[in-house]
């Protein structure tokens, strides 16, 4: 389901299977999460970078509903596992880069946004919050991430309230492209840092960015703590959801 390799100081986590939609089933989320834990516990972790990518046409097409959309306890289970993965990524003691080489929808779009940097291939693929189209609610912890990662209210509305399908260029335009900011208003809406040609180039660019980040020589543990503070509200929502039965009810369980 996913492989982990190291190239220099860059860990590359790849969702495997060329024809696969890399759906985030409970098993796949567990596999990704345990791979991320392997990175965390590697002795070189705090002097490395993690790049997350995928083979084939899809980065990931979101949750796995092949067992049927009416199984609410399955949805609740996938939400719980995704929360744990988000918390893992947000507290990870090394920078994270999503190299988006195919479509990323719904839960997977959120997974992409959990990363510190997002690079995406320009020629193909969409970022797409499908929930509106699928008649699914967006939980508070996912919305909190969206709010912190998409600064422009108009961009947020397009993403969340119209299920806009964004190409890499459109996503980069919604605020930020590789360090240029939305001048006078000071509120860039950006989701994607750079749009690259083709899948291989996207991964290469991610690796280059990773090497550049590592060469600055900061302590990954300090970096991870700073990122937690940057995304404090998301962690707060995750923790509060894990411990609150109200959140369970809002995730459409029948409790």
């Amino acid at each position: 389901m996913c492989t982990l390799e190291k190239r220099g100081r860059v860990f590359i986590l790849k969702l495997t299977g060329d024809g696969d939609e890399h759906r985030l089933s409970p098993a796949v989320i567990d596999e990704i999460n345990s791979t991320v834990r392997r990175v965390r516990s590697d002795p070189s972790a705090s002097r490395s970078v993690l790049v997350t990518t995928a083979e084939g046409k899809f980065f990931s097409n979101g949750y796995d509903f092949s067992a049927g959309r009416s199984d609410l306890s399955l949805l609740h289970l996938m939400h719980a596992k995704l929360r744990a993965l988000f918390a893992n990524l947000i507290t990870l003691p090394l920078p994270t880069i999503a190299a988006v080489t195919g479509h990323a929808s719904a839960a997977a779009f959120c997974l992409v946004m959990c990363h510190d940097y997002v690079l995406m291939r320009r020629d193909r693929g969409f970022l797409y919050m499908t929930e509106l189209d699928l008649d699914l609610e967006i939980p508070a912890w996912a919305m909190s991430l969206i709010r912190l990662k998409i600064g422009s209210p108009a961009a947020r509305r397009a993403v969340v309230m119209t299920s806009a399908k964004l190409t890499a260029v459109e996503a980069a335009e919604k605020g930020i492209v590789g360090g240029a900011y939305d001048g006078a208003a000071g509120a860039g809406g950006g989701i994607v840092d750079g749009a690259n040609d083709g899948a291989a180039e996207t991964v290469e660019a991610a690796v280059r960015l990773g090497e550049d980040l590592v060469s600055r020589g900061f302590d990954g543990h300090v970096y991870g703590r700073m990122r937690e503070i940057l995304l404090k509200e998301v962690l707060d929502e995750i923790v509060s959801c894990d411990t609150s039965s109200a959140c369970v009810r809002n995730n459409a369980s029948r409790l």
Partner: protein
Amino acid sequence: MCTLEKRGRLFVLTLTGDGEHRLSPAILDAIGSAVRRVRAESSSSNSVLITTSEGKFFSNGYDLDLGKSDPSLFPVMSAKLRSVVADLISLPIPTIAAVTGHASAAGFILAMSHDYILMRRDRGFLYMSELDIGLRMPAWFMALIRTRIGSPAARRDVVLTAKKLTATEAVEMGIVDSAHGSAAETVEAAVKLGEEMNLEGHVYGRIREMAMREVLDVIGFDETVSDVVRNSGSKL
């Protein structure tokens, strides 16, 4: 350490001397008492506070050397800075930081505690240095950063890459309102801006407090989020 003078109806608080204006307990006391004097004397006047400094630095942050020699002073410096910032946030008159030198970490935070930031273009950086020096950033710093820096990527670059911002870059990011040719020009521009402001009434400070409510919510303590998350028994 700092002087307070009146120019017309404007107050000018200057961090004096050529040093780094490190925020030691003593200098924070001096700033705090100057801000309290401004509050007392501005109650009947239509005034503005301008904060600036002499020399190469606006402020280079907390006095870390002092803290290393006596770690019990870290919470003291934090408490005193939080008190100054809370006072600035509730001040009933507009505030302008005329940044005429480097402002890093707590010094950058002090600048961002003002309604307007004007900065010299020819020299000096704004710099959240914590990542480079391995220091933690408290949640209240982040809350303040969030009220000033709207772009998520800009926030990431400031906090997670410890980017050293020139005035020009800071204007592009929306952190600084305008950049000026020299230290003197920056102060003059701040004075001009202050003189153009004409705010009657007493509600300005209350409205600012509401606008910066998220900062006031967390400014009572220095805890970072991971302390809270880890203590809540989460299985993370």
